């Protein structure tokens, strides 16, 4: 409204020009398109006026002072009046009206350069509104919701429909309804048996049938998986860090948390608090700590050359975007660079919000250049790690026992105990054998040398040296002195030099033993000191001869630097001896490496070993636990010890019974599941970083003011909110927050109807859509908070409504008139989300592994898809066994290269918070369903399952299994023909049939069970049905 001021200045001329406009020359305004007589009374600022002003005017005449023109604001009534744009009651005198109607292209508002235009209807509305007094209303979403208690979902929908002269559509048929409930609540299809049972129950008592089906589904552990799909989009859950090298990041514990929380119906307010600030709750549980990793799920970078501060700025901005969009339905993103153009969110609000997260212990650059804001070591505890798999990448990490493997091992352990009992009955001599073995280990024979380094040994140890400081040569007797066998090692050192010997297996050294080593010191060039170092167990032991010139271990002293004596005589072979007791070596510590060090000079090193009275070979096989039992007299009288010895014996001797064989197999399975821990980047509250307002979002500009944590001012309205993340979380999760409950119930509504009541799910700001049924949205929000934020109860209320149970195929012109079903005069036909398309195919085929939770899995994926990934390069290893058949939600989520099946069906990369998935219909979807091996394999598994029962009515049964209904005659004819044609083709070409049924990792049944052409043809049939629009749609 650039010209207003001028017009006002030359008011005389302006008046003339206004009067010259035809629509105001007569008392009657321009004829209305909509001929409703008293439109003024019906006008709602929130519904009718604000959307126009916000979209068409606020960019230049709204909250952002930087882009504000002529100092005029239209978002505040007083300002609009003070600025003389609006004269309440007098559209004909209001310059705003003049300027929207003018034909003068230099004056018209909005100006042509904005590419915004007002429709005649919008102009009329503005005019009528001013005439009625130009009353403003506070933005609907920022006001506390209100409701009348006698209302229900159905009454409020009916009321809305009545205004349009409509009523609710008929209820849908029972089988469609059951499918709808299944896909909406658990995401898995009903079995034909469930459909039959439900149809029967529905006929006698529809309400009861739906209620009990709903309760059963809500109690299913698959409910949490279904609910998690959208939630994980919102909180940008992914298995890789996104930026640059997009390295993997193990975060699956968070997904388990989300699934479990939905399953146990964790109240939504708690759910919010735990994610934003679970770590700050008093004595947080492990689950709450995992929840707070929400803060660590954003993208991170390890790109070389990135600046710490720059990426801290990126991470903090991302947290503001995600937290404000997913919990508050507010698009704060814009305010990173400038005050919001439409919403009353200032740049200061943005950075004050960001400051809430400034306590999170992290780096910006996850490279060597980045720094934690506080000493990370202060926070490391047994369950808080800096490194995972010896690598420091995106720490700190929370370490949590892997319940899957613990449970698995427990199960194996129990099986083993049963088998031991059975074995002892089947082989009663076992006990005697164990006693004999124990006696042998305990007895002493005459002492003898047992060499470990000697070329006469069958297995040679690995020898290496620090090449910079020494020269190590293996010499023969012709080249110099050799003590044992054919070679010795000549070591020439410049200052301190050493060579390392890795023993081929760790050895147990009994404390009564002596360690020996043969050396020959060069008389012309002797060292100043020599040292033998033994490594194993928790610490290293060092014994030395001569001066203390070798520095290794000197500081530590004691058994880490123990002097045995002076240098031995030079020019002859000397046997050095170290009593094990001198270095306090315990038999439970297995020595795996010996190091031979010298300071200067030349030393020839030869045979190394132990002199002992014990059966060292047998002893070295023992675990520390068993060694302790062996060395404690009569320890076997304790039953636990006895059991341990028995198990050791049974797994280390050739099997004599089938039970013993099974025990040996089970033990290897147990050791395979040695992933005892899972980890996740964790949120640790540390020293707060200083957060500044970054002018225009520029992190290099550190001139902006320092800000303190605070929610957006317009929402708190002066109320003081604390400055910790927990304070923020509690403020968001409060029933007094007008946005939180509304945003969530709206999101939930969209899951059950396709569109939200306000269809801008992530934006409840001024540009957001005014709800199609604001009373219903408020009713749901209050219902939700009143029932203790119970998601399950709210879902129950929704699905038991008539509105939900309407048909989605009402006939007539409903669908054309209201394609997005904003009126709710029917249900909506919804394409299943990507994950559910996969789940459905696996479920109907019987391939689905219904396991809940756990690490991410790797379904079949086209070769070479990860070839652009670097630092490090990666190859995709598809999951084997049952893990290949997990639900889609468990698929490894590689942000930069999301699995193509998920991507093709619109799943987001989750680099950012996404509140909606774009609805697309592409040829890539068709190609996926047709050619992705997952679907071909599922079709074959389904065909196998059905043919194993019998081969009657195959078309009908396949259809029933996949679509929960019988085919029509027309459909039956088409599919029967296809089936017969395929059978013919595969009978003629059995090789093609064989290839076709071999797709996938699971084996097809042998041809003796189902002839190959029959199976292939039935697979074609199932594949066709799985490709139908109906198979990926919920009606």
């Amino acid at each position, binding site marked *: 409204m650039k010209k207003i001021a001028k017009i006002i200045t030359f008011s005389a001329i302006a008046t003339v020009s206004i009067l010259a406009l035809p629509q105001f020359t007569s008392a009657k305004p321009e004829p209305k398109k909509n001929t409703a007589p008293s439109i003024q009374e019906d006008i709602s600022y929130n519904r009718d006026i604000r959307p126009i002003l916000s979209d068409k005017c606020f960019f230049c005449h709204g909250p952002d002072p930087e882009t504000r023109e002529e100092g005029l604001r239209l978002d505040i009534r007083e300002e609009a009046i003070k600025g003389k744009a609006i004269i309440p009651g007098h559209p004909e005198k209001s310059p705003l009206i003049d300027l929207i109607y003018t034909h003068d292209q230099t004056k018209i508002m909005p100006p042509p*350069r904005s*590419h915004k235009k007002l429709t005649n209807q919008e102009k009329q509305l503005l005019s009528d509104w001013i005439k009625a007094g130009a009353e403003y209303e506070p933005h609907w979403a920022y006001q506390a919701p209100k409701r009348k208690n006698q209302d229900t979902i159905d009454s409020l929908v009916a009321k809305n429909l009545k205004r349009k002269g409509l009523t609710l559509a008929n209820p849908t048929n029972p089988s469609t309804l059951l499918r709808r409930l299944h896909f909406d609540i658990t995401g898995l299809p009903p079995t034909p048996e469930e459909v039959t049972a439900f149809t029967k129950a529905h006929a006698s008592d529809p309400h009861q049938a739906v209620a009990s089906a709903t309760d059963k589904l809500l109690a299913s552990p698959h409910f949490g998986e279904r609910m998690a799909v959208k939630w994980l989009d919102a909180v940008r859950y992914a298995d890789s860090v*996104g*930026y*640059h090298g997009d390295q993997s990041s193990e975060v699956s514990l968070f997904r388990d948390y989300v699934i479990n929380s939905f399953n146990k119906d964790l109240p939504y307010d708690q759910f919010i608090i735990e994610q934003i600030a679970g770590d700050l709750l008093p004595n947080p549980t492990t689950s709450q700590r995992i929840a707070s990793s929400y803060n660590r799920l954003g993208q991170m970078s390890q*790109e070389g*050359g*990135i*600046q710490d501060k*720059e990426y801290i700025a*990126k991470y903090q901005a991302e947290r503001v975007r995600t937290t404000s969009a997913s919990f508050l339905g507010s*698009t704060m993103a*814009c305010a990173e660079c400038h005050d919001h153009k*439409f919403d009353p969110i200032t740049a200061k609000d943005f950075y004050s919000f960001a400051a809430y997260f400034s306590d999170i212990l992290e780096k910006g650059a996850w490279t060597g250049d980045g720094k934690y804001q506080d000493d990370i070591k202060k926070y490391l505890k047994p369950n808080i790690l800096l490194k995972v798999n010896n690598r420091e990448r995106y720490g700190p990490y929370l370490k949590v026992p892997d319940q899957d493997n613990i449970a698995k091992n427990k199960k194996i352990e129990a099986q083993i105990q049963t088998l031991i009992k059975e074995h002892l009955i089947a082989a009663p001599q076992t006990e005697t054998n164990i006693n004999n073995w124990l006696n042998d280990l305990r007895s002493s024979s005459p002492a003898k040398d047992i060499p470990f380094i000697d070329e006469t040994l069958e297995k040679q140890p690995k020898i290496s040296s620090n090449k910079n400081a020494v020269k190590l040569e293996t010499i023969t007797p012709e080249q110099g002195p050799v003590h044992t066998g054919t070679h010795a090692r000549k070591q020439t050192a410049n200052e301190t030099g050493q060579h390392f010997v890795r023993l081929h297996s760790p050895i147990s050294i009994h404390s009564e033993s002596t360690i020996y080593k043969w050396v020959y010191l060069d008389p012309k060039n002797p060292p100043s000191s020599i040292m033998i170092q033994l490594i194993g167990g928790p610490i290293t032991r060092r014994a030395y001869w001569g001066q203390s010139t070798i520095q290794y271990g000197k500081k530590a002293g004691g058994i880490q630097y123990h002097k045995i004596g002076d240098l031995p005589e030079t020019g002859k072979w000397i046997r050095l001896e170290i009593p094990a007791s001198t270095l306090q070596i315990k038999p439970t510590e297995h020595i795996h490496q010996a190091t031979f060090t010298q300071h200067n000079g030349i030393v020839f090193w030869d045979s190394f070993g132990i002199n002992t009275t014990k059966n060292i070979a047998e002893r070295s096989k023992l675990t520390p636990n068993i060694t302790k039992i062996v060395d404690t007299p009569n320890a076997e009288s304790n039953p636990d010890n006895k059991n341990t010895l028995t198990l050791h014996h049974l797994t280390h001797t050739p099997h004599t019974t089938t039970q013993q064989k099974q025990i040996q197999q089970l033990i290897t399975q147990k050791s395979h599941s040695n992933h005892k821990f899972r980890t996740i980047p964790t949120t640790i509250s540390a020293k707060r970083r200083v957060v500044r307002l970054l002018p225009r979002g520029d992190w290099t500009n550190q001139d902006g003011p320092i800000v303190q944590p605070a929610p957006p001012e317009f929402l708190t309205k002066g109320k003081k909110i604390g400055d910790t993340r927990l304070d923020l979380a509690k403020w968001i999760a409060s029933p007094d927050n007008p946005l939180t409950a509304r945003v969530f119930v709206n999101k939930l509504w969209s899951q059950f109807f396709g569109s939200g009541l306000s269809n*801008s799910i*992530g934006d409840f700001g001024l540009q957001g859509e005014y709800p199609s049924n604001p009373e219903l949205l408020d009713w749901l929000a209050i219902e939700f908070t009143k029932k203790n934020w119970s998601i399950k109860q709210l879902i129950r209320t929704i699905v038991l409504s008539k509105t939900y149970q309407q048909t989605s*195929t009402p006939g007539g012109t409903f*669908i054309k008139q209201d*394609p997005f079903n904003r009126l709710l005069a029917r249900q909506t*036909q919804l*394409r299943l989300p990507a994950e559910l398309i996969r789940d459905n195919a696996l479920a109907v085929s019987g391939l689905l592994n219904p396991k809940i939770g756990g690490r991410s899995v790797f379904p079949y994926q*086209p*070769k*070479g*898809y990860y070839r*652009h990934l670097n*630092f490090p390069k990666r190859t995709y290893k598809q999951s084997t066994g049952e893990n290949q058949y997990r639900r889609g939600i468990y698929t490894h989520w590689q*942000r*930069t*290269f999301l699995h193509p099946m998920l991507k*093709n069906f*619109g799943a987001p*990369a989750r*680099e*950012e918070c*996404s509140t909606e998935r*774009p*609805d*697309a*219909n592409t*040829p*890539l979807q*068709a*190609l996926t369903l*047709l*050619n992705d091996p997952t679907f*071909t394999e599922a079709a074959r598994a389904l065909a196998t399952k059905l043919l194993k029962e019998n081969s009657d009515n195959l078309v009908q049964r396949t259809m029933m299994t996949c679509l929960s209904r019988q085919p029509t005659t027309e459909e039956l004819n*088409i599919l029967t023909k296809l089936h017969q044609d395929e059978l013919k*083709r595969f009978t003629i070409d059995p090789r093609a*049939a064989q*290839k*076709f*049924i071999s*797709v996938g990792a699971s084996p097809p049944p042998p041809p003796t069970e189902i002839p190959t052409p029959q199976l*292939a043809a039935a697979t074609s049939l199932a594949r*066709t049905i799985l*490709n*139908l*629009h*109906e198979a990926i749609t919920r009606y």
Partner: protein
Amino acid sequence: MNAINRRTFLNHGLAGIGSLALSRLYAAESSDSKDKLPHYNPKIKRVIHLCMAGGPSHLESFDYKKELEKLHRQDMPSSFTKGQQLAQLQGRALKCMGPQWKFNKHGQSQTEISEIFPHIAKHADDICVIRSMHTEQINHDPAHTFMNTGSIIPGRPSMGSWVLYGLGSESQNLPGYVVLTSAGGGQGQPISSRQWSNGFLPGHLQGVEFQSAGSPVHYVQNPAGISDQSQKNVIDAVNQLNGINAKRTEHRDIATRIEQYELAFRMQTAIPELMDTKGETQQTLDLYGCKPGDGSFASNCLLARRLAERGTRFIQLYHRGWDHHGQVKKGTAATAKHVDQGTSALITDLKQRGMLDETLIIWGGEFGRTPMAQGSGRDHHIKAFSIFLAGGGIKGGITHGETDELGYGVAKDPVSVHDLHATMLHLLGMQHDALTYKTQGLDFKLTGVEPARVVKEILS
């Protein structure tokens, strides 16, 4: 029928009803674009973006700096760099590094081009070099994202998707937005599929990446044991059954799905046909100097021409190999060798076929490199870098913009990434600030919130 549909129909009039269905599929959702598209008469039909990933050094390619040569190995004057953001050089002593390659003047225009591009230099009079590009992001991943989507926030649509959203595709059988990649000559920076994402735009507008190994497009091959005929039988049955369903449920999506299955089947034939270069003459193959199917940049250039002929609207060729932190001399020459002949051949080939005038070629990286040495190499640099444009509506044989005497900052006629986008859209007949899409309550544009301008000076 809006403007786009009409034009698509005219172009494919002979193909009959199929093209109508398709135009509906690929056309812009006019409810979101405020005006009819194109906004005015387009100069070009398509864009081929030769994306030199890693950040080619402008100082060894298109921007000769004599003064820098003089200051070789001397301290970089601190007046240039004080308080400025550097990448890996942050906090280190800064020394100048003179241009590592000789520059010669070429063509009637006497455009200065480095000797590492003997083939491109032959087109000196066809190309417009912009020496005053600048960008906002100093690391590869965000800089690519910014170059492609005009935003550093992930999840925004790439320029190819925007173009497709505005104009639709002219191909009936192939995707409208295709991405091909190659590597060589330097460290292969990772490239995210975010770079060709449709973001919040509808999914059919996404870039489809063609693979150099295996089947060129995911899931384009029939399952083992399934012949084309058998595949067709299945698709026919699916479509018949979907047709019956459509009558019953009146859902508009089903009609689209039927079209998708038809298109999928046509793609399964069209893609092998596209990739099969048997029909190319020896002369053409020699021009590109490649063995078709070898996954090289030159091979991709040949495929780009074939895609252009078949109506693909937006083609992006990534060559990953320009990140020369060390050995910038050897490195730039090595990488140039990978891309020089292919680029030149593409220009020649399109010209010979009369297609250059209807194509915009953009050659350039996500940023440039520092005038300061990083050992034997150069660090990332965002204050100034060079790109070149060629094709319809572009003045050939000119250079636009200048850097300062050391090639550090822009001295004259700066061109931002958003300006480049605005110019590209303009050539396609679209006004950049009118090509908008509303989501989450906001009108998004490729060119962002800040003002952007069409670089009129380079337009013919």
